[in-house]
């Protein structure tokens, strides 16, 4: 009885899903293709790492502190005009190799919201190491109004919030270009309108962020490194990898210790198992 009902139920679901298959197949046959080719699909490009790679990439990672400091400088002098970094406090900058005094001085360079101690009114004051990076806009409406209706996202977690994030940030920053003639011909709707910029790494090809890094020497690196656009993009992507995952290097290093221990434990467990089971293999 159960089996009879089961067979009927099974055939019922099969019938309905095959009907759906049939109607889908008819549609596909009618139009002659599976999905309509879109500009995002035809012209999207996969993100790639800078040619020289990164010290934190791979199985033996380390932070290049000079690079992180340069990346921080790019963030501060360029990106921070539009993007916040709200998961990071100034005190965290000591992990980039700054001394306590330097962190304190750096924090004081920033203006953060404060309260007037006499009147209680909202005001601003220089930052302290315990403060978090201030948001560039008071609220989303202001952010959108200043940026052609797009809200610049917070960058703290950007490299974890996109697939292959470090490479993505680097590729996005160096990937701005004029839309190709082929794109304009095949997908006239995908040619960027006013206030939008073409970038094959961005999911829908046109974004509202004007190319932020445009000229060599846009920042003057404190350590004298030549600030080409490629160098600035490489460095800021490294910095944002750190902001997204400050524990990355410690994690992988600890991982090797744990692995060593586990492999050792596995060998012991294997020997123990062999010894215990030796008795059972004998016929007694």
């Amino acid at each position: 009885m159960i089996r009879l009902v089961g067979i009927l139920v099974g055939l019922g679901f099969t019938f309905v899903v095959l009907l759906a298959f049939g109607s889908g197949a008819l549609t596909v046959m009618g139009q002659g293709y599976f999905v309509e080719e879109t500009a995002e699909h035809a012209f999207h490009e996969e993100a790639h790492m800078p040619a020289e790679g990164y010290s934190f990439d791979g199985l033996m990672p380390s932070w290049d502190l000079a690079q992180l400091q340069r990346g921080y400088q790019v963030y501060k002098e360029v990106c921070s005009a539009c993007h916040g970094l709200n998961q990071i406090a100034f005190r965290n900058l000591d992990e980039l190799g700054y001394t306590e005094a330097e962190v304190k001085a750096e924090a004081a360079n920033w203006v953060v919201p404060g309260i007037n101690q006499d009147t209680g009114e909202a005001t601003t004051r220089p930052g302290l190491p315990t403060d978090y990076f201030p948001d560039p806009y008071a609220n989303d409406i202001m952010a959108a109004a200043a940026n052609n209706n797009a809200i610049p996202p917070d960058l703290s977690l950007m490299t974890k919030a996109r697939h292959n994030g470090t490479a993505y940030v680097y590729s996005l920053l160096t990937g701005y270009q004029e839309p190709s003639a082929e794109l304009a011909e095949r997908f006239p709707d995908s040619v960027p309108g006013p206030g939008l910029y073409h970038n094959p790494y961005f999911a829908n090809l046109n974004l509202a962020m004007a190319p932020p890094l445009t000229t060599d020497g846009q920042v003057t690196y404190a350590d004298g490194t030549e600030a080409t656009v490629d160098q600035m993009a490489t460095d800021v992507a490294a910095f944002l990898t750190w902001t997204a995952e400050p524990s990355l290097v410690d994690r992988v290093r600890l991982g090797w210790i744990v692995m060593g221990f586990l492999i050792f434990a596995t060998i012991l467990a294997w020997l123990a198992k062999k010894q215990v089971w030796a008795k059972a293999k004998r016929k007694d």
Partner: protein
Amino acid sequence: MSFPWAKQYEPTNPLMKYLDEKLPLPRLVYNAVGAGYPVPRNLSYMWNFGVLAGFCLVLQIVTGVVLAMHYAANDAVAFDSVEHIMRDVNWGWLMRYAHANGASFFFIVIYLHIFRGFYYSSYKAPREMIWLIGVVIFLLTMATAFMGYVLPWGQMSFWGAKVITGLFGAIPLVGESIQVWLLGGYAPDNAALNRFFSLHFLLPFVIAGVVILHIWALHIPGSSNPTGVEVKSESDTLPFHPYYTAKDGLGLAVFLIFYAAFVFFMPNALGHPDNYIPANPLSTPALIVPEWYFYPFYAILRAFTFDFILPAQLWGVLAMFASILVWFFLPWLDKSPVRSGRYRPLFRKFFWVLMVDMAVLFYCGGAHAEEPYIMISQIATAYYFLHFLVILPIISSIEKPEPLPFSITEAVLGSDEKAAQGDSAGTAA
């Protein structure tokens, strides 16, 4: 509860003797996972996954309790509180990655445990009750994981919760009321987040209770084994300790290597990047998918695209629930007297077709809902239901099984004197 030749607990230490009289906990352990529990001598490594699932449950509870000390279930701060755990809590990143990947590995282990059950028909009498309880555990674990994934309150948390609770809206007449009742509102918000946290904290302990029932039920007939032939005599078994403690110990060590590789070297590989974007009800992600371990069922849900008497979405919801509920009926759908797939040539082939089918469903469940993936998942869904509800009942009556060994001892050692003596020894219960 066990075979007549099971060893008895005989404490010699006066303290243990005292304890045995007042509260025989050591005796319980001895009889459950010690030398007092005889187990078939031929269990393969596929029998490791029960112990591993138990380990995962403990792991989730331990890491989860620590996370709960720092997590704040409020929609304004939940996302930041998880980042606070990652950045400011000592070893917080380790706890969180251990918990998030622990959930994935929990499912890997449970799936292998269930597929073991499929292949060796572990669901058959006298073990139906163990199997039924197991399916309940699976459902509870799915609910727990679904609600856990909502807690970090990222984009996928929010939109996943919205899509899955939205399924209840497909139920005619009462659907919308149920949905509002479940969420405490019209869309996931603070009320939903709070109750999900409360339930996410509670359910693992319910699971632990049901696991005890699962093991209790198991200890009545004892484990099945790769031949599917029941234990006949003492030479068919070995005491759990030291034999299977040693074997499970090795399995656990190997498991931990794979698990640690993910926790330390690729902790986000099994997650979705969108969940590092704070939940935003105004911005729909390009692709809404659940966690990977729900992909096959999500594919079944999305395969129904045609209104046939009922709306397509309702068919999808029914089919998705039915796809797991059929497991409850397996003991009665599969009538073959032979358990193990080893001796069932036809069954074995279809088992592998099912594995491929589920892999296809898995792939389609994670893909965009567009052709050709929808059509592929429709064929795969059809096979899924045909397999359990039509093919299995039919092959179990027409198939001619291969000859079985006389006993486990014969299968392992090549001969069993008792077989030569014509001693059938009776099946011990």
